[in-house]
Structure formats: structure tokens, C-alpha cells
């Protein structure tokens, strides 16, 4: 985190010049809990960013990236958040799938898929979870079989965010009959717009629909649209998740900081700042923000050395729990008006309150996070799977 480059200044100037006009209404929008805001305009904004070369700045130069340093990526994400840029419709393609293709894909896959991501014209979503593979992610039932040079896919994925706005989905499916758990899986790249695929939005308690069910009934992709080989699906899927712990968490934190400021400011205006207990909670929320930021820096610095440091495992549960508590604080700061829907709609803080209940669940529940921490960071023994006395004795 020592020397600075001019990327921050360059990007900041670009945002200042371009994130305005018709895009003004996207300011601070399309964050989690609000992802259905202005779908068309958001995709247009992605193309704007792509055209200006601001997608894939962290990719290697060979694939059109700028090979930006960690420090620059942090700056990039911070500037984006500071300018109030909307939630990135392309982030799954850009920060998860693209690095996976670059690391594990064939040259043909790189040629086929990276340009559309980079241009902000092709969007991706993630096909991991299934109704019976939630916390137990390896319990995949979706099947893929090879027939006449094509993969035929049958099954169901769930909790797929952004599916309605996406062009492609990457799918973890079971290719070997009779295989269980992490074996026999494949990682496939599948076009969404085909007859064998049906997308149904899942309405959440916040009234919005960030997540979807995706049904596969004889859906198809080319034989070549597999990353790795048959049986490598689990490895690729996990490698992709590894890219998630990136500099974008710092951008997320700036969104959180913005939400926090809104709440503190409301408390100042409506007099709740006089309440000693609200003061404690405001101060603790602020401390949590600072702690998240420094924990992310520790993790990022450590991951530069190639090792994932232990404190990295706490990031998900910490931010999720923090954000859920922030939602409760927001309601308490609103006071009596917290219950009223102005214009019959949830306002931003009410949405935060409702949506944040899913934060501690999606992407690995708090319970699963504690398991992971106990086993990977602390080296404690694994939980027995079924087959103890519970099922058979």
C-alpha cells in the first residue's frame, strides 16, 4: 500500500465526466436489496464502462486488462463507490468467471468469452446452489451428459442472482452417474437464451427479486464449453469462489459506509443521537466498519504472497452480521416512522433492514461460515456426515 499510480485519478476523472446525465438516477442504486432497479439502464452503463476500458482492469494485459496492482484495484473500487456508481451488473463475469477462464480455460474459451465480458455486452450468472444443495454444496443433482458433441443438461439451480439480466450461466453438474459429493462433476458454460432453460424470479420478503430459480430441461452447450475435464467441476467451482475475496470487498464497504452515514445523519436530524443506547450502537457500527476495512487490507496483503491468511475466513460472517445489525439499527433510528411506507413503497433503509436478513444466509450461512472457520482457520475436527447413529447407527 505504499506508492500510488495515476489510475485512481484517471478513473475518478472519467467517473466525474461520465457518471452523470441520464445515469444520475443510478447513483447509489442497484446495491443488494435493490438489484431490480433500472435494469436496462444498468446494462447500458456497463457498456459505457466497457467501451472506456474500465472492465477488467485487473486482468493480464494479454487479455485486454491493465494488470493493475492490488493497490490500484483497491483505488478503482473505492473511487467507483465514492462516486456512487450503481451495483455492477457485470461483476460475476468480470471478477469471478473471467479469472477462472484465464487460469483454467482453453485459448478458444478465452477468445470466445472474455471480449463480451470486457465490452460490458455479455453478462454471466452462477449456477451452483440447488434446492437440496444449499449448505451442502457438493450434493449436486443436476445432470449433464455428452451426446453428439453436446452437453445435455437436466436439473434445477436456485438462488441465482442476476439471472434475468444475464446472457450466460456457468453450471456445476454431475456428469458421472452414481458419483457422489465432489467427484464426477463438470463445470459448464451455458447460454441462457434457449428453449431448455426457464428462469423464475424468487420474490423476497423485501418485495424485490434478487434471486432466481433456473430450470434446465434438455438445455444444451457445446462439448467444448467445459472448463477443465470431467471430474474437475468441484475444483474449478471452488477456485472461482476463491477469486471472490478480492479488492471489491473494499468497494462493498464503501457502500456500507454510505448507508451508515445516512443512518447517523438521520439520527442527528431526528434527535435519536441523544439516546445513549442509540449512541452506543452507532459507535459500534462505526467501529465495525473500520474493523472490516483493516481486516480486508490484512487479507489482501497476505493473499499477495499467495497464501490465504486465516483472518480472511471471517470476512463473510463479519460483514453479513454487521449489515444485519445495521438494518436493525436503521429501523430503531427511524423510530415510530419505521413502520410507515411512504408512497406505499419500502424506502432505502427499510429495504436494507429486510434484505439484510438474507446476508447471513446466501453465499454460505453464518452456521456454515463458523464450520469453515473452525475447520480451516482453527484446525478443529470435521463434523461427522450422516451415517452416525442418526441415519443408520
Amino acid at each position, binding site marked *: 500500500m505504499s506508492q500510488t499510480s495515476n489510475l485512481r485519478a484517471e478513473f475518478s476523472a472519467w467517473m466525474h465526466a461520465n457518471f452523470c446525465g441520464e445515469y444520475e438516477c443510478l447513483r447509489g442504486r442497484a446495491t443488494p436489496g435493490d438489484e431490480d432497479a433500472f435494469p436496462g439502464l444498468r446494462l447500458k452503463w456497463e457498456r459505457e464502462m466497457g467501451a472506456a476500458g474500465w472492465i477488467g482492469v485487473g486482468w493480464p494485459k494479454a487479455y485486454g486488462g491493465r494488470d493493475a496492482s492490488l493497490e490500484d484495484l483497491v483505488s478503482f473500487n473505492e473511487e467507483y463507490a465514492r462516486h456512487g456508481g450503481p451495483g455492477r451488473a457485470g461483476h460475476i463475469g468480470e471478477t469471478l468467471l473471467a479469472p477462472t477462464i484465464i487460469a483454467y480455460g482453453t485459448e478458444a474459451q478465452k477468445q470466445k468469452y472474455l471480449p463480451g465480458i470486457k465490452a460490458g455486452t455479455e453478462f454471466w450468472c452462477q449456477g451452483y446452489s440447488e434446492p437440496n444443495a444449499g449448505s451442502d454444496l457438493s450434493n449436486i443433482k443436476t445432470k449433464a451428459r455428452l451426446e453428439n458433441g453436446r452437453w445435455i443438461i437436466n436439473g434445477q439451480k436456485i438462488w441465482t442472482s442476476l439471472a434475468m439480466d444475464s446472457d450466460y450461466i456457468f453450471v456445476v453438474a454431475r456428469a458421472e452417474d452414481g458419483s457422489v459429493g465432489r467427484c464426477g462433476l463438470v463445470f459448464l458454460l451455458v447460454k441462457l437464451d434457449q428453449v431448455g432453460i426457464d428462469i423464475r424470479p424468487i420474490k423476497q420478503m423485501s418485495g424485490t427479486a434478487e434471486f432466481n430459480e433456473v430450470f434446465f430441461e434438455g438445455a444444451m452447450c457445446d462439448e467444448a464449453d467445459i472448463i477443465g475435464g470431467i471430474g474437475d467441476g468441484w475444483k474449478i467451482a471452488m477456485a472461482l469462489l476463491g477469486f471472490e475475496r478480492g479488492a471489491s470487498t473494499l468497494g462493498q464497504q464503501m457502500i456500507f459506509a454510505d448507508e451508515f452515514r445516512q443512518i447517523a445523519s438521520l439520527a442527528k436530524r431526528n434527535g435519536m443521537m441523544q439516546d445513549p443506547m442509540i449512541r452506543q450502537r452507532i459507535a459500534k457500527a462505526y467501529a465495525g466498519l473500520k474493523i472490516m476495512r483493516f481486516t480486508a487490507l490484512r487479507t489482501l496483503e497476505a493473499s499477495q504472497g499467495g497464501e490465504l491468511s486465516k483472518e480472511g475466513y471471517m470476512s463473510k460472517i463479519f460483514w453479513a452480521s454487521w449489515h444485519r445489525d445495521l438494518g436493525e439499527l436503521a429501523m430503531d433510528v427511524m423510530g415510530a416512522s419505521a413502520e410507515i411506507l411512504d408512497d406505499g413503497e*419500502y424506502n432505502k433503509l427499510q429495504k436494507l433492514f429486510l434484505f439484510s436478513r438474507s446476508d447471513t444466509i446466501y453465499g454460505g450461512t453464518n452456521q456454515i461460515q463458523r464450520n469453515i472457520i473452525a475447520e480451516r482457520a482453527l484446525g478443529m475436527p470435521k463434523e461427522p456426515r450422516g451415517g452416525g447413529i442418526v441415519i443408520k447407527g
Partner: protein
Amino acid sequence: MAYPFTDEHEMIRMAARGFLQDWYDGGAGPERIYQSGKAYDSRAWAGFAGELGMAAIAIDEAYGGASLGDLGRVIVMEELGASLCSLPFLTTCGIVADLIDGIGTDEIKQDVLPKIAAGEMRAAYLDGHDAKDKRVYNTVYADCVDTIFLSRRAGDAIEVVSIPTEANGLIITPEKTMDPTRSFCAVDWSGVAPLDMTVIGKTTQIQLNEIVMRSFISLAAECVGGAQKCLDMTLEYAAQRVQFDRPIASFQAIKHRCADMFICIEAARSAVYAAALAAPDDKTEAALIAKAYAVDAYFKITGDAIQLHGGIGFTWEYPLHFFFKRARANRSMFGSAPRDYDRLATLIFEDVA
């Protein structure tokens, strides 16, 4: 049947539960109310309060009631809480019935209480003491009742008057709220002619507080009923949901969380039953404890239930969110739990040396 209830209580509970769980219909009931855009169900009122006779539960036998007092009301409110059925029971058969019983003249009692007992009158209560311009913004069920009972300052005393909701100049504006299953209204009575207001009786601030605070017990019972329903749903889900080749109910993290939910609910239940049974001198303190504890418990339990259900827990399709929103709304009802505890602290410090 378990203490403090008798077999008679238990029969009433079963009758109420039968009706209300049919209404609830696995969550279809609250969803229907949400879809209707009106946060009350007048048909259900006719069946529950009238035909089933539940409105009579706490009314004195002399006026056609069952004389089952706070304990009887607790039974009904627990079941209302478990179903989220949108009925003005708490205001009609709680606050207003108690007000008339406590401060009404014989004549008024004879007139009103039998109507309430028969389910023929629905009533809302409105505290207008500090209202600016004869307007308040937080009256529950005002848009679905026959009569509004308004308490207001009259010199040093407090006066309670009734206003028929069809009175000219009475403006009742229902609000959209996060909890869609309980009506919540702004009421403006500035245009009501004095002739349309009937004086029910006079009282003191202290007596009024004592009467109104009995409704804290009902609110607390609603919380216990809702929380228990959420725990039941969670236990059922955990028993059938398999992950890692085991029902998740067999994981200690789930078991212990459910155990904590159980402790929390049973503690709230004890507080509610104790308040229902409390002697008049202890009523205010016991009601404060019951309400503060149960409101916190309900919010915690609904949050836990969502968490333990995983993904499905935060979907609209699954009815947990209705309970969560009710629990959250109850945190703002009759003032917050921290305020209750602060009042309780004042009572405690008055008492110790």
C-alpha cells in the same frame, strides 16, 4: 392442560386455534390480507368474535361475557398471534372493554358491553392527550370499527368519549405499513361536531394508565403465540431438511439455537401468564415486564427462524416474513422495550433502600 390453565381454558384455546389456523391456512390467510390491501378481515370477525363467541371472553358475566379476565384474553391473543389474523380484538375486547368497565356509568356498561361481548361492536382506542390539532397518526384498526373511543384532557381530569366512525367530519386514513396484517391509521377528529361525541366517563391519568397497560399483557401474549408458531415451523423444517446426509435437526448448531429459542419463548410465556394472574397492585409492573420481554423475544425468535430456514426463510412465498414484520411492528407499539425497562427501573429504584 398446564398451569395456569383449566380444562375450560383449554377448550377455548382449541376452539380459537381451530378457527384461526383454518384462517391462516399455511400462510395463505396473511397473503390474502396483503393482496386485499386492507389490513383487517371483517368476515373473520363475524365468525370469530360473534359465532365463536371469542369477543365475550373477558367481559363480565353480568354483561353477557365469560368473565375469564386477562387469562382468557391471553389465550385468544396467543392464537391470534400464531395466525396473524387481522382482527381488532385487542382494542375492542381489551382496551375499550376495560375502559368502559372501569370508568363507564352503569347505563353505558349495560349499553356497550353486551354489544362487545356479542361481537356486534368493534372499537378502536385513541389517546388524544398530546395530539396537535386533534389528529394522531398511529391508531390501530380505526378503519374497520364502528366506534372510536378517544381519551382527552378535560381540565385536570381525563375524559373518554366515543365517536361513531360514520360521524361527519371524522377522517380516518389507513397507512401502508411494513406489517401488512394489522391496520394502522391516521385519525383526524377536528371536524367532528361535539354532538357526535358521547362522554363515557371521567378518570385520572393514573387510572387510565392502569387500564391501558393491561393491554400490554395482550400484546405480549400475541408475541408469545407468534413466536411459538415460528419455533414450531422451524422444528418441522429442521426435521425434514437434509444436508450432509443428515436432517439438519441433528446438528448441534441447530439444536442449540432451537433450545435457546425455546428458553426465550418459555420465559416470555412465564412473564405473560404471571402478568395475567398478577394482583391489581402488581399489575402494572408485571405488564411492563411481560410486554418488554415478549416483544424482544418475538423479534429475536422470528429472526432466528428465518436464519434456520436458510434460503427459503427470506422468500415472500414462505410466511415467516409476515411474523417477522409483525414482530418488528410490535417493537414500536405502545412505546419501545427500552422505554418499558427504563420505567421498570424507576419502579425498582423507588422500592429499594
